């Protein structure tokens, strides 16, 4: 009797969170999966079952492949660089240096700004006529190219903005983790003969692994989730040069109103992120030492 009551009690406590999760996460996923096998409803033709047609169309859609490739380049660049920068900045502001509070604030400022505001700032930096980069280049007698307007540079501009925005955020986690490492451990390693680099590699980095895993998961999610700045900077152009999966889903779903195809694209993105999360948990988690 008592045990039963405890079980009921537990389920009741979990209920509000479960309702929210089901309502706003699990149910929409199931509906999206269902929609991805249906055609998009038209005026005189209601939605009907089309099987894997949407997925087949995707496989033959060069824009999808372009967006996927762009997204992989975007992730491949932003994830490692923003994490490495975050670690570097955290190590810098964790040391005894003059002007430390100012530096911490400077590194963290981009995180506080909304992505759209960040994009607007960088829009000014990248402007080929009066932008900050152009003005700097003019000092040495050069002129800036139209960074956002040409295919070769546009994606890298979007990547730079994302790194600038994210590194400061991840730095906070690294800084917090660094401050929990007992100084004794570093001192003991130094006495044992380890140099700065060896201390970093053999003591500090392993002890930061739980943080790295957390930051990595967030970075992966962000690499497929953050598109705000693409709206402001390039709108996915020129000629899909900065188009990424989520942006493509938005275009297909809300500009072209092809909901069936958008649902199929969403499922591909979800499956990709799910696989990445599983990979991280099962392969990396074993190498992580939790204190």
């Amino acid at each position, binding site marked *: 009797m008592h045990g039963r009551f405890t079980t009921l009690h537990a389920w009741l406590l979990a209920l509000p969170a479960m309702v929210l999760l089901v309502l706003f996460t699990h149910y929409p996923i199931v509906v999206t999966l269902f929609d991805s096998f249906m055609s998009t409803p038209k005026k005189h033709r209601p939605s009907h079952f089309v099987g894997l047609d949407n997925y087949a169309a995707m496989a033959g859609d060069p824009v999808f492949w372009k967006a996927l490739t762009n997204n992989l380049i975007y992730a491949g660049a932003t994830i490692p660089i923003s994490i490495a920068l975050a670690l570097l900045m955290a190590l810098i502001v964790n040391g005894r240096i003059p002007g430390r509070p100012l530096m911490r604030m400077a590194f963290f400022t981009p995180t506080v700004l909304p992505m759209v505001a960040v994009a607007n700032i960088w829009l000014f930096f990248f402007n080929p006529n009066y932008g900050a980069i152009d003005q700097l280049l003019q000092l040495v007698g050069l002129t800036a190219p139209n960074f956002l307007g040409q295919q070769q540079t546009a994606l890298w501009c979007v990547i730079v903005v994302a790194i600038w925005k994210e590194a400061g955020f991840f730095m906070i986690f690294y800084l917090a983790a660094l401050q929990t490492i007992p100084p004794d451990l570093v001192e003991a*390693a130094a*006495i*044992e*003969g380890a140099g700065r680099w060896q201390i970093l590699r053999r*003591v500090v980095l392993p*002890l930061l692994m739980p943080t790295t895993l957390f930051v990595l998961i967030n970075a992966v999610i962000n690499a497929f989730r953050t598109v705000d700045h693409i709206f402001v900077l390039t709108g996915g152009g020129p000629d899909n040069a900065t188009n990424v999966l989520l942006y493509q889903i938005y275009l297909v779903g809300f500009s072209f109103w092809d909901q069936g195809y958008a649902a199929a694209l969403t499922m591909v993105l979800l499956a990709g992120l799910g696989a990445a999360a599983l990979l991280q948990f099962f392969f990396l988690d074993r190498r992580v030492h939790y204190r």
Partner: protein
Amino acid sequence: MSEITVANLTKAFGPHKAVDGVSFTVSSGEFVVLLGPSGCGKSTTLRLIAGLEPPSAGSISIHGHDVTRLGPSQRQISMVFQSYAVFPHLDVARNITFGLEVRGVSKAERQQRLARVADIVGLTPYLARKPGQLSGGQRQRVALARAIISERPVCLMDEPLSNLDAKLRHEMRVEIRELQQRLGMTMLYVTHDQIEAMTMADRVILMKDGRIEQDGTPADLYERPRTMFAARFVGLPPMNFIPAPDESGTVGIRAEDLKLTSGAGRLSGSVAGIEYLGADTLVSVEWQGLSLIARVAGASLLKRGETVGLSWDDAAEHHFDIREQRRPVARQFEHV
């Protein structure tokens, strides 16, 4: 040959001098304890010798080399921390061989030395465990093993036993001393515990307010304390102090040198408390507002409030000058 020579060492944090002109030497194979109350500068002195803090003035040489400006890794020392400082992400074996690994000692030699040292400290069955799976005493042994395996001439220890329970502390005291003698290690050991100092040390350096109060053998400190501070700090219960009859200073008498007499004795007072310790009993006697403690063998039949006389031999008196609170130089050798 002296392994460690510290000359005029000073460390200031702002206007406060944590270590103030300290000089001493430690000979090869000697076990020297830096003793003192918290905040006396003993740990800072050790950290300066380890190279973990830069000194404000003075010099340090280890094994004949001036190391004052060298980093901790270049000083050829090993150190055991109060927290043990074992690496939580490495197993016991890798913790012990950490130093050998970073110094590029070959794997075969590492394994060979590990096997020997693990055997010495009794960690052989635990080599594959992570520190999180060890007890406090075992972690302490890992730290000890790390110091032994390095085979460096000098070992520094910073309150290594203060996180252990009383029984284990006693065992480790005996064990560390035995290891130090067997392996011929030169040891500089910091503690605030006078029992550790008295039982383990060849020589004790007593510190107070960043300065050396007395540097001598445990017997020197106990039998010939140079200052009232030393007399109070070393020995349990602390030395009794009474004003000298001629008001020239203070006379100190150890509890075991005070004898209770049924007659008047040299002083008489009333029994204020009785602490029965088993082998002996501490009787505190109130005399002119002072509490004097006498150690008597076995149990005492005295009752609180009873009047007793106190007497002692002249030879048991320690004289301290009133202003300096120091033993006057002329009377220094009175008891020798």
